């Protein structure tokens, strides 16, 4: 309305702002921003630890070893100390590598050596390879030495079922309720599920989750238990340093 006028100490948007309102508004805005920053500090202080995972998307690497298709695609890679390590193989995005790996893995028990290109995902010494897009697997290379197998026996683990890819370092955080939908989508897409639990020394331990028969658990069986407190009972084996639990029971923790 009026472009000019005297409103005294009464604020009218299209007239000059009264000096008292200018001072009050300045103080109010500054106080509000300080409160908001304090809230940001509180929010971040309450956020849980995210682990030391690394998703090295900047360096494509090539690993060679024995390709394995079941229960999940993985590569047995020779270590420098004469043992072998199992490196899980996944596709980009939230997809397992079953279809990509299947043509290379023989079903007659013959071991096949391959070279696989991709990007390493590493957390606490455990590795996963996210395969490159363009023909990342080729036959060739050296087979690793014979595997190590330790039968731990039947145990009960209390922890959280996560998708191995996010938890190993693709996402931070890669666990918890806010990550549940992502973990569910990953596992639905074929990313290997794991149970992670806190060891007495405070470190996090991970075991690959499979069914009692050693095959992947059906998604519908696993889905209700993803990213929530869970008690898992089953037989644990450690193959080439990778813990695998063959699940017989999934329950809520006591």
């Amino acid at each position, binding site marked *: 309305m009026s472009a000019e006028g005297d409103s005294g100490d*009464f*604020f009218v*948007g299209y007239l000059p702002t009264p000096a008292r309102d200018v001072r009050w508004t300045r103080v*109010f805005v500054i106080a509000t921003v300080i409160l908001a*920053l304090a809230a940001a500090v509180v929010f971040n202080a309450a956020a849980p630890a995210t682990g030391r995972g690394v998703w090295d998307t900047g360096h494509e690497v090539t690993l060679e070893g024995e390709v394995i298709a079941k229960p999940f695609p993985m590569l047995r890679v020779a270590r420098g100390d004469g043992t072998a390590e199992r490196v899980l193989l996944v596709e980009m*995005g939230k997809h397992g590598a079953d279809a990509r790996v299947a043509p290379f893995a023989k079903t007659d028990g013959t071991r096949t050596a391959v070279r696989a290109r991709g990007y390493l995902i590493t957390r606490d010494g455990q590795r996963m390879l996210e395969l490159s897009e363009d023909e990342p697997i080729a036959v060739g290379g050296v087979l690793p030495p014979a595997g190590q197998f330790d039968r731990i026996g039947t145990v009960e683990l209390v922890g959280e079922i996560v998708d191995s890819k996010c938890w190993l370092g693709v996402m*931070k955080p890669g666990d918890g309720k806010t*990550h549940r*939908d992502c973990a569910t989508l990953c596992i*639905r897409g074929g990313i290997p599920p794991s149970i992670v639990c806190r060891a007495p020394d405070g470190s996090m331990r991970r075991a690959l989750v499979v069914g009692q028969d050693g095959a992947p658990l059906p998604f519908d069986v696993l889905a209700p238990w993803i990213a929530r407190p869970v008690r898992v009972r089953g037989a644990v084996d450690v193959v080439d340093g990778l813990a695998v639990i063959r699940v017989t029971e999934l329950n809520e923790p006591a």
Partner: protein
Amino acid sequence: MSVSYQAVQWNAAKKAYDRRLALAIAVYLGGFVLAATAAFEVSPIVLVMRAFGTGAVLLLVLILSIGPLARCTPRMAPLLYNRRHLGVTMFLMALVHALLATVWYHGFGVLDPLTSILSSSTPFEGAAQFPFQPLGLAALVILFAMAATSHDFWLRNLSPRVWKALHLCVYLAFALIVAHVAFGSLQDAIWSGYAWMTAAGTAWIVGIHLAAGVKEFRVDRRARALAADGWVRVGEVGEIEEGRAKAVKLGPARTVAVFRHARGFSAISGVCAHQGGPLAEGRIVDGCVTCPWHGYQYLAESGQSPPPFTERIPTYELRIEGRTIFVSPTPNAPGTPVPPCAAGEGGAA
């Protein structure tokens, strides 16, 4: 207030308002990133998602605070003036948060993202398992409807009543967002300070609305108690300062603003035709009743906006007996001229 529609009727106050808003948001986002990097490492997308999400919630708390605070002090008027820009900005921040969450958590998979949002969190077993993302999505839909209609074009075309009802849905959106936080990130928090902060913010919003409501209720109750003889007693002549008004409640949704101005006393509807602002808290500026919210103006004797503007509000008859002012409970048609009632005349005009 205009005679033709413009996308935004910019003026110096609005430009300064938006500059300060942009600066405050930049300071907050920067501060959030600093606070986050001092804590645990998080994915960059998660960091940005969290910064925008928390920023949107805090901005919503501010937006919901301005109305009740403005009922308590006129010093909040400069913040109230351009509140719709706050609202649109808050929606855009919430949208950034939602888009990043959708892409990051629901993208790149075997389901399309929207299907994933609405189907992944299946267990409905108590607070810890309650799916929180559909709650955020529902709030975002409401905020979108509000942001999209946050313009006088929609106020005019939807009618003030429908527009107001739509924008009152902000309280439903706030409740959904509180639930989104409580069933979402609060479930992962490792420190109770976050829960207390959320509770304090919610209590603040509820508290100041109750306080403003109690203040209004006291005014309403006093006015009804003094009603007599068909006409309603406004008060003594000396109670109303020059250029100011006194509010009188005539019914649940009807308030009269009785103004004292250079030509005497006049009564008009207490509700601004623009966004329902409280005209009784306005002043006479340049000879016109001026709304405290957005500066819409009316002639006190006719309830008409000065030409070329076309807004009209109802007027009321007044009479003064001795030193006591009475107002007729029956409104005149909007824009009906009523000669002002001068103190000492002793009768209705």
